[in-house]
């Protein structure tokens, strides 16, 4: 599964929903994937699907939002916002979730895993 560049394919681009999230299961871990369309540009993000405040696997079902220049997702449970690129919670100083490198290779959505 891991090659020299250790990027693994998770799904196809068509599985993603514009300005919204889907969830992938990789090695028993739930990763929320987002496709954000911003000013004609498309950007992908991958974060942990676990909402540490609501304590459930739900972040991919949250609403995307921008806070100034920061792109974030608001948890569907209690609405705390998490920055998609850093994983920090904008509403609670001491909470951060994991973010993962993500890219598009010939329509395939890929995540990077460690050796």
């Amino acid at each position, binding site marked *: 599964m891991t090659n020299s560049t250790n990027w693994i394919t*998770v*799904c196809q681009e068509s*599985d*993603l*929903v*514009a*300005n*919204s999230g*889907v*969830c*992938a*299961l*990789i*090695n*028993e*871990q*739930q*990763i929320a*994937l987002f496709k*954000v369309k*911003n000013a004609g540009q498309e950007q992908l993000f991958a974060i942990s699907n*676990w909402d540490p405040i*609501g*304590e*459930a*696997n*739900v972040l991919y*079902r*949250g*609403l*995307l*939002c*921008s*806070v*100034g220049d920061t*792109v974030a997702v*608001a948890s*569907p*449970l209690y*609405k705390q*916002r998490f920055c998609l690129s850093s994983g920090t919670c904008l509403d609670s100083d001491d909470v951060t979730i*994991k973010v*993962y*490198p993500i890219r598009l290779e010939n329509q395939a959505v890929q*995540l*990077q*895993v*460690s050796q």
Partner: protein
Amino acid sequence: MSTSAQATNSQLRIVVVGNGMVGHHFVDQLIEHNTSVGADNSALHISVLSAEPRLAYDRVHLSEFFSGKSADELALTTPEYYQQHKIDYKLNAAVTHIDKVAKTVTTVQGEVLSYNKLILATGSYPFVPPIPGNDQPHCLVYRTIEDLEAISASSKVSKIGVVVGGGLLGLEAANALKEAGLETHVVEFAPQLMAVQVDGGGGRLLRSKIEALGVKVHTQKATQTIEAGDVCRYKMCFADGSFLETDMILFSAGIRPQDKLAREFDIAIGERGGIVVDNHCQTNIDDIYAIGECALWNNFIFGLVAPGYTMARVAAAHILGGDQTFLGADMSTKLKLMGVEVGSIGDAHAKTAGALCYTYENQASAVYKKMVVDSSKKKLIGAVLVGDTSDYDTLLQYALNGIDLPEHPEALILPASGGAKPGLGADALPATATICSCHNVSKGDIIAAFDGGACSLSDIKSCTKASSGCGGCSALLKSVCDAELSKRGVEVKKDICEHFAYSRQELFHLVKVGKLQTFDELLTKHGKGLGCEVCKPAAANILASVWNEFILKPDHVSLQDTNDTYLGNMQKDGTYSIIPRIAGGEITPDKLIVLGQVGKKYNLYTKITGGQRIDLFGARVDQLPEIWKILIDAGFETGHAYAKSLRTVKSCVGSTWCRYGVQDSVGQAIELENRYKGLRSPHKLKFAVSGCTRECAEAQSKDIGIIATENGWNLYVCGNGGMKPRHADLFATDLDTETLVKYIDRVLMFYVRTADRLQRTSVWMENLEGGLEYLKQVVIEDSLGLGAELESQMQVVVDAYQCEWKTAIENEESRKRFRQFVNSDKADTNIVFVEERQQIRPATPEEKASFTQQQQAKRIAVELV
């Protein structure tokens, strides 16, 4: 002890008799004046003659002497301070003579002082009822530090103490005895405690609270004699033949003005005592003033320190040539007695002619509140609060400033569960209204601060300190600032969020007038950024109200809150609930069976909701489409329990079965539910229809309530239960069904167009200028000429109805949304149930922890970067 500073001939000689709280405040005013003109060449020479062995101290906090405060700590001034300011003072120097012609006074030591201006500030003395035996050693009073020393000494050799008098001071004294470890009794002549400040109801509650603290209360007892006791030192014999044994008696039966000097030397006094003064605190004799508790103004003695201080300022100003006047004072009080909160405002006993009362009594929480209003029900003239004085400040504003009461004044004292109480409109407050009592900031001070350059709420906070104390005034402060800012043309933002500089109502117009169909169009034309969790659902809701398109259309899908996206309410563990529509609460046995079968097949928790339907809980997101497929095939539709839209139209059984019913309430409920289902609105909507006036469907607690009459239907609008319940208002009577539907169409569409986001009909209506009357004009009289348009817009929405679940499962693309994982068919392992009362429930975190430990062992750990 005394100081002497010789008066020069050119100086004005001022002699102050009495150095209590008010006498001292007067001296302080003159010191301030002296300092401001330069003390050395002062034109004033001030002498102070005190009957007590020490200079002024804080009588208000006298009781703290018992909790360890020393006389020094209670002192309001020091000998050094008086000396420094060349105040000539003499202690233990009661004045015994006044010569009004020679303008001199003589002290008990025989010293003679001449005056140009004489100030009587002799205060008052405790009234001891003329009961035989009241002059024995352990019969005491409560006024001076010496009194308290005597009480302390006596309580060391006493087991039982009785306080005669159940007023404010009596209860304070009782607390002191209790603290000293005595078995404490209060004997009161009146039928209740604190008869001056609180009414019968408040008195009853106060009594029970004080008794709960272990103090025994005896009301309607007139003491006739104090004799030697059998087991205690004394025996108090009452008029009704009963008696009480005690070791100590503390009289606190009221105060009397200390007007002895005035009586003896022919200065006018009132019929029942007190030195008569005018608005400048002058007596009937030239150059003699009286201030504080010895003064009788307008036939009234003020037994509180604040009015005394005002008198001191007025008299000082008058002597120095100023022109302030004393025009009475508010006697409202708020205090905590033995931990019991008590508040009294104005005419607590509703003695004013035509006065009306609103009373709230909650025996369970021991709270009693009463408001007294004038006969027009427009002004608050009095109030009594026992057990909870949190409404005191607001009520006092109404009373002191003569502010018009809101339409339902009772809301001011009723508990507001959750939401805020009806606030005081900022414009209704006069400039003198105190906004922040901690820092004594009035509305006028705030306006002055704006005039002085402040530009925002935070400027006001930093320059006036308002709201930096207890914080209780912050809402009031904000509304005063907002109102003031908007008067100055500063725009107070109603923007829905950082992405749109518009209110919901404005966005609605932009969508409608611009014929905008998608969020992208709206954002490109009128907004910025990506949008957020606030503006997206609001826009989706507006788009749906205007166009009523399928909400999972790709254009809309990213806008919806999870509940709308997945057409169900998300539960705490990420699963969803399923509530099919059961219009009017009517359901066939066959459909009931289907619900049972589905619940069983998918192992769902099943419950009857508060809205007359059935909720199935615990469905995983991936199970939703197949469950709904079964339900739809059996004839069910979505119940919109997840949406800001019509929820249920509750019904009672009505004339079909019920012997009292006068119309078919079930039929009407079903028809209305089917008409308005799917209507997206600023907040959820609930209806109910009752078949007769017995109102079994609780229609008056709904946004739209309908009650059958012999002749048709009575329509009620804008009620709700929930966090801040409100009864609906009667809107129109005896309507036929056609008119009923027409009015409902108009009310709802007008609401959909003009309400704020997440504003229920009640709050919307209360915020409409003109309120219910205005709404009636718009809807019934068609005053805006909007009626036909509102109806036709409603018809568009009604015609565009579709069952969202039906569309969702028929559409491959939207079905894809219900996958948990894009790359796996597995289920979310964090969703774990345990069994309780033969059904599932979400496992607690502890239960889950033990479950996952077992799972963990099987897991292959490949770390992601």
